[in-house]
């Protein structure tokens, strides 16, 4: 079984994000980058599937991103992924989901696939579009926000739970399929020291647009990002003070009613 896991290099969840001067990106100095946390669930599920199915099953990571993405790719290899494709081209700086889905579709088709796992969204720009466009380009079903994944014994279809408002939805999909992963699907393994030592010998196939048969970056869809803006500042905080708590509560209620007009 040929398993593809998609990776995105994103700033650490704890990183302090500052917009650059041109408003078209973030300041990367001193920022630690990690594998998109939702993609980690995809990697783990891909590895578990390989361990379960066995035989000549293989997990290949596919990552489109700048040169520095090698580090997160190496982490995936250290977790146990067999090999990786790194799509890297200067023309892909700040790509739209359409562009990325188009090049991923090409690379994934070249690799061959039975099942594709990815995160439900990138934790950096939160667009959550790539997997859906990719499903369309590959003309395969997609199941989003999976929290439980199982493969039928004859390997012909996937049975999944999707977390929806108030409960779970049980879904069946034929293979090949693309599955976007939600928190709770699994507990991703660590990149172990033996895994890291083995990862050194695993292959990362670097491909640029020309290698994938593109003359230029594929069209970017119908929307485009104009500018990135810093988080708007929150309103002033007003402290209610009084000698007796009961008076403070009265004053708070008055402010909520008369000034904030929320009660």
């Amino acid at each position: 079984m040929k398993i593809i896991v998609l990776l995105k290099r994103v700033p650490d969840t704890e990183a302090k994000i500052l917009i650059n001067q041109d408003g078209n990106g973030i300041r990367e100095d001193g920022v630690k980058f990690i594998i998109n946390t939702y993609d980690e669930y995809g990697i783990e599920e891909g590895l578990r599937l390989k361990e379960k199915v066995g035989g000549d099953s293989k997990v290949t990571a596919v990552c489109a991103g700048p040169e520095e993405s090698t580090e997160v790719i190496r982490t995936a290899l250290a977790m146990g992924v067999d090999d990786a494709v790194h799509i890297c081209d200067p023309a892909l700086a700040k790509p739209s989901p359409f562009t990325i889905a188009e090049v991923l579709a090409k690379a994934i088709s070249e690799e061959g696939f039975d099942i594709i796992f990815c995160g439900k969204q990138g934790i950096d720009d939160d667009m959550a579009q790539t997997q859906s466009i990719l499903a369309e380009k590959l003309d395969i079903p997609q199941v989003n926000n999976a929290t439980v994944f199982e493969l039928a014994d004859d390997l012909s279809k996937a049975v999944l739970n999707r977390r929806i408002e108030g409960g779970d939805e049980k879904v069946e999909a034929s293979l090949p399929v693309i599955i976007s992963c939600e928190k709770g699907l699994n507990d991703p393994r660590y990149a172990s020291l033996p895994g890291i030592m083995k990862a050194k010998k695993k292959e990362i196939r670097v491909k640029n647009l020309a290698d994938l048969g593109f003359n230029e970056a594929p069209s970017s869809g119908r929307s485009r990002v104009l500018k990135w803006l810093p988080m708007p500042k929150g309103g002033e905080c007003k402290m209610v003070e009084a000698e007796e708590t009961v008076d403070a509560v009265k004053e708070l209620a008055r402010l909520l009613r008369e000034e904030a007009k929320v009660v």
Partner: protein
Amino acid sequence: MKFEALDFFEIEKSFNEEEVLIRDTARKFVDREIIPGIAEQWEAGEFPLDLVQKMGELGFLGPFIPAEYGGAGCSYTIYGLICQEMERGDSGVRSFCSVQGSLVMYPIWKFGSEEQKKKYLPELAAGKIIGCFGLTEPDAGSDPRSMTTSARKDGDGWVLNGAKMWITNGSIADIAVVWAKDEEGIIRGFIVHRDDEGFSAPEQKHKVSLRSSVTSELVLEDVRISADRELPGTEDLKSPLMCLTSARYGIAWGAVGVLQSVFDEALQYSRERIQFGRPTASFQITQAKLVEMATDLTNAQMMAYRLGRLADSGAMKYYHVSMAKRHNVNVALEAARKARGILGANGITLEYQTIRHMCNMESVHTYEGTFEIHTLILGEYLTGLSAFGNE
């Protein structure tokens, strides 16, 4: 409060990709598996035994041991980085790794027979069995040559008698590497099993330091073992001292983890703690303390980094290790005390990391060659004159 490791001189950039990856794994492991429960375990006087197999799976136990014996065959720098992260969690956890790796796996690897290596090393690396190291005795601490534990030849085997003290992991160990003097006064190493008749390892209680580490006595009363339990390649006192050099190397790195932890905690606390209408970090006395801590941390970091590179190129000598252990642990203890002060009353509760580190560092300052002994080792090396009492 999310931990941020100060890296003032950008040493991170000197580490290669795999060094950074394993450091990241170890850091994540400490954040998720050690920090959340360690204060409670420390207070209860418990070692987090359930983490041992996990540490084995991740390759944290004896990582420098070659892959053919179950290790990862990695560099000493990687071993150092693992120690740094473990000790950022707790000195007790790092002590466990040091003992298992440097004091049990290392002597079996260096002085053991092929059969011993194949029998014990893979299980020790996987965390399936635990080891301890018996050198120190109630009346032989800094002066191990004066040990009285004896090994008497008995037919094909040996009979061991004596008592060891301050033995990390003793009561939870499946095997003990025990050092004893033969009838000619030569120090030899033996592998004693937990269930060998005449062997017992009662735990030493009532410690106010390293509370999340098991410390024990080893009692050997006519313990009869076969000849294949002796480590055949030892050379008198030199052999246990080689083990100690390896362990002290890890401690020099571990101290950096403590420095990063207490500095980060003091910095974050003092920026948020308001007194007299301003953050306590805005006061000159606090700033002076923080600057001293940051400078000491940076010094310790550079010493550990360089020590790692010396070890990996084969140029590391015992005196390099002595200087790094002596310096790094000393400044870590001082920094922990300063941080304790900056945290004020909160600095004495286990809600924060600092007091635990501060208490732990008192042990680390004393064990594996006291601060004073390392001073004498360096003094002797620099002057060519020994200041040890009886020489």
